[in-house]
């Protein structure tokens, strides 16, 4: 369950991270792994999938030291998708929370 849930939400998390500002793969992994566990191996297949969906596009930035670096940026479609995903997520969380509260209330009721 945990894995399934994460797989669906990982896309949203990456889009959200990019909504805060363009970023590159290593930085994205660092940002995400500050608050959640992310497999580094998933990052590139995931970014390619997001690119294929046209939610994300890339551009190269020349660096002073060594070869250029690939930056990812949200497309207009990606922003729309993010809003949609966030709405669904919020609804899901509030649904689950209300069930949990209801269950907790019942348990308390039975106990007293």
């Amino acid at each position, binding site marked *: 369950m*945990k894995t399934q849930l994460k797989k669906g939400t990982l896309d949203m998390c990456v889009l959200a991270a990019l909504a805060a500002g363009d970023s590159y793969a290593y930085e994205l992994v660092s940002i995400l792994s500050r608050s959640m*566990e992310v*497999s*580094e*191996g998933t990052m590139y*297949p995931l970014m390619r999938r997001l690119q*294929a969906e046209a939610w994300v596009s890339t551009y190269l930035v020349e660096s002073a030291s060594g070869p250029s*670096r*690939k930056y990812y940026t949200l497309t207009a479609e990606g922003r729309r998708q993010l809003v949609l995903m966030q709405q669904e997520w919020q609804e899901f969380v509030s649904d689950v929370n209300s069930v949990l509260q209801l269950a907790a209330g019942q348990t308390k009721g039975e106990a007293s």
Partner: protein
Amino acid sequence: MNQQEFISQLQEALSRLPESERQDIVADYQEYFRDGLAAGRSEADIAAALGDPQQLARELMARHHMARWESRKSFGNLFAVVGAIAGLGFLNFMLAIPFLFYLWLLTMGALASTGILIGGVVLFATLASNALFGWPGIQEARDFRTLWSSYEQAGPGANIHIRGSNGEKVDVVREASAGRVSVHIESSDGSLSVQRSASEARGVLRSVNEDGQLDDNELNIGISHEGAWIAGVLMIVLGAGGLCLCYWMARWTWRALLAYGRYQLGLLDKARGLDG
């Protein structure tokens, strides 16, 4: 595994991708190694975190082929998809063999239907054009029949015998009692005879030369005009029906295959472990 090994294994496994796409992927991973090293990690640590390059490449290949298949549905691309999915695991590989056989049958069916359809259309168009504009002229075996009938009408005494100076012979003989008519041509090289028996449509062709003798006892003296029309229409119906069936089956197969491919890639996502 160090960076060098990881990158070269990846490159090797992606060798069938277009050059630009392969370089793009390899550059991604090189960039990742650079960033990781800059952050003070070891090459082995980064390589381990990125996963098995072979498996990574197989997945990238499968995705690539499926994307190409979705943008252009050619048989070449289809076989590439099947091959890529087969490469994802042993069970897939085993399933691919009967599947490829099925695809082959489907292809043959489609080709045969196309041939029959084209034949029918050509036949129909020729007949229609002939009926409407008198072009192209249709060389019917009817000429041959006309020969018989006009000869038959000439009466029993109308046998023809022509003799050449070097022993060449041409005989046209009617045997009224047997209801048989024959043309016999003979020279020093051999002989050719055509014989029509009492039955209307069948004839016998016999050709003899120094190499031997050829008999065709089921000589069909041309199909009738009506027969040709019917054959043309039947071929069109049969060919079109076959093509529709093949097309419908192919569409169904494409969808099933893509769904199966996505499912397999989904399994890979899971198997790789999102928790690291």
